[in-house]
């Protein structure tokens, strides 16, 4: 028999999915205790003034399973993830630190493969790992390797991004096909037999954001589309701005491979994680230029305007053309069927 109304007071996996529960955990525990002005925006990175100019700092932990996957590995991910958080905050990433938690028994050859991959990613992104730490835990107390990276960057003069910037009439764009990373990891971890067609999009986004910020006026806010995908990122920005985002489904780039595999698995590419994609809100007059600039970069060839900002109350809508207007919101655990 089932207990009626028992209270779950433990950490759930869904607390880490980037959705509603993650938000609650951060708000109700971390942000409440760490409460300070720099943390408050709960953005990808914190921006602060230093004698040398505006700086950005961020940190991220990586626990991906499997650690090697098509399109990347945990090392490349650990570099790109932190670089990307700095990049979408408007900063030019400079230096990273890396700390490693290694499980007893983890192959040294694999470790070296991960670390050399990190070095290669640093080379591409133009950053350096300048400090590090290593801990080893008994077998079973971690899964092979966990990496935490932190990064600092400088914010070029004139860059002003944030929730205060978007306004009705602005457009929203993304730099390419969505959902590839999340699906690739799932397919590889569960050995679903889909791997051939899929690859992670893991990439350093500063190569894409730097030219955009440099040459295109009217960039209002950027966000990388990691856990929870486009839906979670857009819902968070729309909610914080108090504006509605209207996306048009046919405009949103999703590759055929991702679309097909997601359909079979019953998953929605708009909620799947990316590691080399971001969304940007840009003034309408600069939309054409922004897309053109993105398309000239190595990781923005499929960039597209996907929708617009309208006055509203902080919701994200997807105009499907057929079957009405879907509401995209923060995911809350795995989606459960509602239809009967």
């Amino acid at each position: 028999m089932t207990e009626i109304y028992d209270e779950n007071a433990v950490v759930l996996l869904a607390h880490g999915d980037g959705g509603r529960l993650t938000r609650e955990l951060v708000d109700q525990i971390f942000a409440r205790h760490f409460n300070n002005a720099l943390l408050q925006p709960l953005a990808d990175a914190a921006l602060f003034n230093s004698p040398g100019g505006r700086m950005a700092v961020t940190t991220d932990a990586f626990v991906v399973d499997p650690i090697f996957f098509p399109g990347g590995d945990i090392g490349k991910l650990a570099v790109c993830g932190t670089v990307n958080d700095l990049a979408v905050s408007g900063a030019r990433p400079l230096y990273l630190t890396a700390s490693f938690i290694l499980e007893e028994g983890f192959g040294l050859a694999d470790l070296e493969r991960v670390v050399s991959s990190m070095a290669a990613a640093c080379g591409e992104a133009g950053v350096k790992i300048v400090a590090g730490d290593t801990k080893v835990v008994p077998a079973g107390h971690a899964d092979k390797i966990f990496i935490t990276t932190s990064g600092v960057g400088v914010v070029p003069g004139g860059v002003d991004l944030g929730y205060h910037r978007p306004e009705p009439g602005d457009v929203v764009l993304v730099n390419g096909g969505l959902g590839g990373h999340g699906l690739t990891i799932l397919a590889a971890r569960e050995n679903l037999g889909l791997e051939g067609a899929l690859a992670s999009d893991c990439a350093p986004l500063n190569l894409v954001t730097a030219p955009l910020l440099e040459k295109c006026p009217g960039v209002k806010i950027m966000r990388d589309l990691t856990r929870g995908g486009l839906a979670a990122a857009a819902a968070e920005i729309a909610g914080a701005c108090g504006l509605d985002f209207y996306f048009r489904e046919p405009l949103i780039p999703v590759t055929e491979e991702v679309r097909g595999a997601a359909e079979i698995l019953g998953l929605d590419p708009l909620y799947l994680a990316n590691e080399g994609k971001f969304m940007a809100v840009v003034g309408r007059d600069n939309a054409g230029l922004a897309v053109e600039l993105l398309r000239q970069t190595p990781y923005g060839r499929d960039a597209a305007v996907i929708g617009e900002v309208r006055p509203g109350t902080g919701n994200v809508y997807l105009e499907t053309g057929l079957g009405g207007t879907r509401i995209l919101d923060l995911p809350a655990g795995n989606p459960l069927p509602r239809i009967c």
Partner: protein
Amino acid sequence: MISGIVQGVGFRPFVYNLARSLGLKGTVCNSGRGVLIEVEGREELVHRFIAGVRSDPPFLARISNCSVTSQPLRGYETFEIIPTRGSATGESVVPPDVATCPECRREMLDPADRHFGYPFTNCTRCGPRFTIIKSLPYDRAYTSMAGFAMCADCAREYGDPSDRRFHAQPVACPACGPGVWLVDRLGNVLEGDWLERARNLLAGGKIIAVKSLGGFHLACNGLDPAAIGLLRRRKGRPARPLAIMCRDMEVVKENCRVSPVEEQLLQSPSAPVVVLEKKPSSNLPEALSPGLSTVGVMLPYTPLHLLLLKTGPPVLVMTSGNPTGLPLAAGNREALATLSGIADYFLLHDREIVNRCDDSVVQVVDGQTQFFRRSRGYVPWPVMVNTGDVDPGETVFLGAGGDMKNTFCLFKAGRAYLSQHIGSVDNLEGLNNYQTAMEKFFQLVQARPAVVGYDLHPGYRTAKQARSLAAGAVGVQHHHAHMASCMAENGLDGDVLGIILDGTGYGLDGRIWGFELLRGGYLRFTREYHLAYVPLPGGERAVRNPWITAVAYLTGAMGDDGYGLAEKIFADRLKELPLIARMLERKVNAPPASSCGRLFDAVSALLGICRENTYDGQAAIELGEKVPAVFSGPLEPYPFRIEGDTIGVAPLFVALVRDVMDNDVAPEHIARRFHDTVIAMVVEAAERARFKSGLNRVVLSGGCWHNRYLLTGTCRVLREKDFTVYTHGKVPPGDGGLALGQVMVARRKWLHQPGG
């Protein structure tokens, strides 16, 4: 003082005429609490008058209370209807819409009558009500007739207490009322006689969007398979049954079996769609309800329908005028915008539809009426609820309903006002419709909720939306609400056993439930028995693809052997099967479900009846077609096993699939034995629960009870075992009745909370 539904139903003229016929003197008027009558005369005559008021009120009226007190004589000299005293609020309730009455029908078909051929003819006994009323009091000024000034003839009838149009608020005639016109997709008006042209277009196979009473219908010739096919293609509805409207009872009886109860329903003032058995001799095209032995039939319920059907095709498809997934279109411009991809022409009029209201749909099972959808013709009549306790504050409760087949429910002073069918609330359009319908409904019922009962499903938009409307909120488990709904409409309190067979509902363990034996009452419940869980690979994708659920059941019951059988039975899915198996093994996006709907899905797919659902419940409905409409026994179940609180299905699938693979066993036989198994499972669970609890009352709720064989069989076997069995007759057993249960549970919990 008479309270109840007594305003806007011809109550005062009825009182006036009754009093005058008895030679009594006095007054009658509407007041804030109902209808106030003062009557003087010989005692015996006054008693006859009171008895007459009580026993024979206008059929739209619902008297909830009639209190009589003695007052000093005033010495009235006549009997008069006098102006409203105070504001007409409080207990007065908006009546539902009423099908055209015989007298209006006669008048509009009589060339000598001034209403001849007029599509908006009505009187106090019929016509639009709920769909045209903006707010109370029910007065023409607060309806969408406000803009139409009455001509002298109509005004005379409206003002004459002896006329049947006395104070008929929507009264209208060709000289002063709304008009009809026909346009093409671009909105260009077609000149000439709209009726003649519309009939010809329908006869020629065209699709017309017809603005009806509560919204648009998509109409085409119901005897023309090509026209039906076209409508299906354009609406993207390959298989879902389409309702038809027949010219008259004769046409219905030519094509369908009609019992006296069904005939009465068809001709009732509510005029619902009645699901009828097709006759073998029927000339109705198969395309109306592919694979089904039944068809949904209604009779013309507005003058416009009567005119359309009088000549021309005697059978019209009249399906809801909405693109799939969107709310029913109600405005002219809205219809042109949303239906121009489906309809060739639009039959429009200028009487605004204030409250959209879909057709009601019922079936008769074993002589009992059962709602698929309770809407036009019934809403906003309240369900009277015997609450069995006292709430001095008379708190108003809202039941938010579910996200699918939504209705909501407002509870005030012992009455549960269920809303019209809102339908699907999973997109912005549906959510906006839900929101505006609630606001309008609050106005008409003149109550705003203080506390809302909502479903626990974390993805339900209705729950989130409704919670923002009230200060208090009580989460109500989906199937607890179903159980409470059946208890409420049967006037039960205390503890019962609830057998809930359903599609999808969020359980207290965070999983999908839908095959439960619950024990308890409004305040609390325990889940005594449930079906074993099965993973649904792909979540909602499995719900849309019953063959996937079948694979899950087969591998769950028989492991690798089951997978081997799946490869044989679903040989056309070999490419996808390994992935499904992998998802099952690794539990990749495969939420576990314990649901009767999924069990039916799986068996339907295994029997090759339906492998993909193109509409809600298709696989289960088509499986139900393979068994007789009424259970006649004996019960021949496949084996199953109850262990602890779990009803195991492995033995069922082993035996069933053996029959499936055996060409000598007819699918009908397997289908019947499967149904018998479900009956045996719930009866066995009920007996065990009765043994433990001593409870003997059983309520049956949940969408699967639309299955007639299942319902009649379970009732019969339970009653043979001396259970007292209660079923749904006033609200749908499925999610259309959920909100009633939500208010009942929320109310009891709210009133019983510590310090509450």
